[in-house]
């Protein structure tokens, strides 16, 4: 197991008008594991807690209950955040918002190298060029700012930034949702190649089962903050849970239509 979540719960408190307040259960006892060199798809409808899980997995938020493990080590034992982030990275949803509009592509991809490695600036630049080649970004984009990038390019920059440290595990939050079908397919193909070349494990969070099942080894369905079903991606026909069934049917109808 490269990454594991055990019984993770998270609720948000919100305020209503004046003195009232309520609680929103986002994750309720979610357990999920990703094996070495495995690609797992986490599929669910909007509001099922997918992005919250991603934030908790990256220590950007704390769970109320439950334990998480990275490479067999519990999150509480990662006192050195740098060691943690060298092994796990994320590609955020809406990748163009994850890029500082004032920075150049080079600065953006270089940021993790600056804080998490001891490489000098020449070695960093070389590493940036390598990774840009791997995600098929032309090197003349190095000096561009994110405002000038297309959606697919922004997604590749985000991906390059996550992969530049060669982490063991990468979470991709809706990596294809804002892209058109052609670019979607290119990105998925590229993920496959990177997975084979760099032996990275991926957790791909998406609402789009049709896209995810192309590359995932295993699909986990999330509903109301917990995993309701897990199947191999070639056995999607056998799902039992009503939400999972609905998603599978929708995906099949969609691919038939295309």
């Amino acid at each position, binding site marked *: 197991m490269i990454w594991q979540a055990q019984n993770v719960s998270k609720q948000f408190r919100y305020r209503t008008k004046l003195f009232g307040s309520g609680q929103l259960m986002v994750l309720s006892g979610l357990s999920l594991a990703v094996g070495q060199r495995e690609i797992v798809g986490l599929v669910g409808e909007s509001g099922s807690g997918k992005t919250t899980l991603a*934030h908790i997995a*990256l220590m*950007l938020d704390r769970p109320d209950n439950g334990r998480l493990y990275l490479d067999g080590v519990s999150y509480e034992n990662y006192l050195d*955040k*740098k060691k943690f*982030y*060298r092994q796990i*990275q*994320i590609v*955020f*949803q*809406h990748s163009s*918002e*994850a*890029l*500082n*509009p*004032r920075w150049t592509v080079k600065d953006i991809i270089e*940021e*993790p190298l*600056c*804080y*998490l490695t001891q490489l000098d600036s020449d070695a960093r630049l070389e590493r940036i060029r390598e990774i840009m080649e791997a995600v098929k970004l032309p090197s003349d984009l190095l000096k561009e*700012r*994110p*405002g*000038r990038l*297309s959606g697919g390019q922004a997604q590749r920059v985000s991906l390059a*930034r996550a992969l530049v440290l060669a982490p063991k595990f990468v979470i991709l939050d809706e990596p294809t949702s804002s892209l058109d079908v052609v670019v979607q397919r290119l990105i998925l193909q590229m993920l496959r190649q990177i997975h084979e070349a760099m032996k990275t494990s991926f957790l791909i969070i998406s609402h789009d089962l049709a896209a995810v099942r192309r590359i995932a080894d295993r699909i986990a369905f999330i509903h109301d903050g917990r995993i309701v079903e897990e199947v191999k991606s070639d056995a999607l026909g056998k799902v039992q849970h009503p939400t999972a069934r609905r998603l599978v049917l929708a995906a099949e109808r969609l691919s038939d239509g295309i």
Partner: protein
Amino acid sequence: MSCQSDGFMQAWDKARPVCRQTHVLLYCSLCLLILYAGVALFAPFLAPHDPLQANIANRLKPPSAEYHLGTDQLGRCLYSRLLLGARNTLLSAGAVLSATLVIGTLVGLFAGFLGGRCDFIIQRALDGVMAFPGLILALAIAGLLGPGLENAVLALSLVHWAGYARIVRNMTLSWRERTFVYAAQTAGADPVAILRRHILPAIVPSIAVIATLDYGRIILSIAGLSFLGLGAQPPAPEWGSMLSDGKAYMQIASHLIIWPGAAIMGIVLALQLFGDALKRIWNEQDVERGK
């Protein structure tokens, strides 16, 4: 400019005339500001007379070849006093501005970024400071330490920084939730690095605009304090106190209040225009960046 769409071109065409006007405005106000700075810097060399030398025989003279702007109630050269007053007025306002900017920005950044209980405590402290009228504090400080320009600067700084802290805190709060700040966290950046490299550059343009506009307000506050006798002490020349001294002779020697008044109005106007032009230009750049 490889990816210009029609929408972008339309926006560009619309922005261009504004752009030219704005640049003219920017350079004009900048020239005026440089003029003021030059006067403040070289005042001792430019002044034809000693600004402190009184000559009762010459009092309240209208403008003449010898005294370009006339003389005041003690027969001192108004022109020389105006030039040397620039130094006192502009420098003390600059001191207030830099002190408030540094303290306000630091406090605001940390309050906004840390959030939670820390933010709450800082906020209440700011409420306390802001509830205190500047003039009353200046009176208190003048009472404790004696009236003077330095004490007026101290009093205004003590009151003024809270406003900046609040603005910076609110801006920090909104930038902190941006995805790229989370991304910086996963890149291993510590909070200070995030503040310095991501959040501060994002809010600096807004702070700079607010500061240029505020500089004018501070000059007016200092002039106001001097007018009340809490700022610059006689015989030192300062625009506010010159106005204050001149008001008794308004009807027989109106030049005593017209020229210091015009000097204050000029710098405030130049700063307002400069700040406004900066704001517009930065806004356009943001539009171009596609934000």
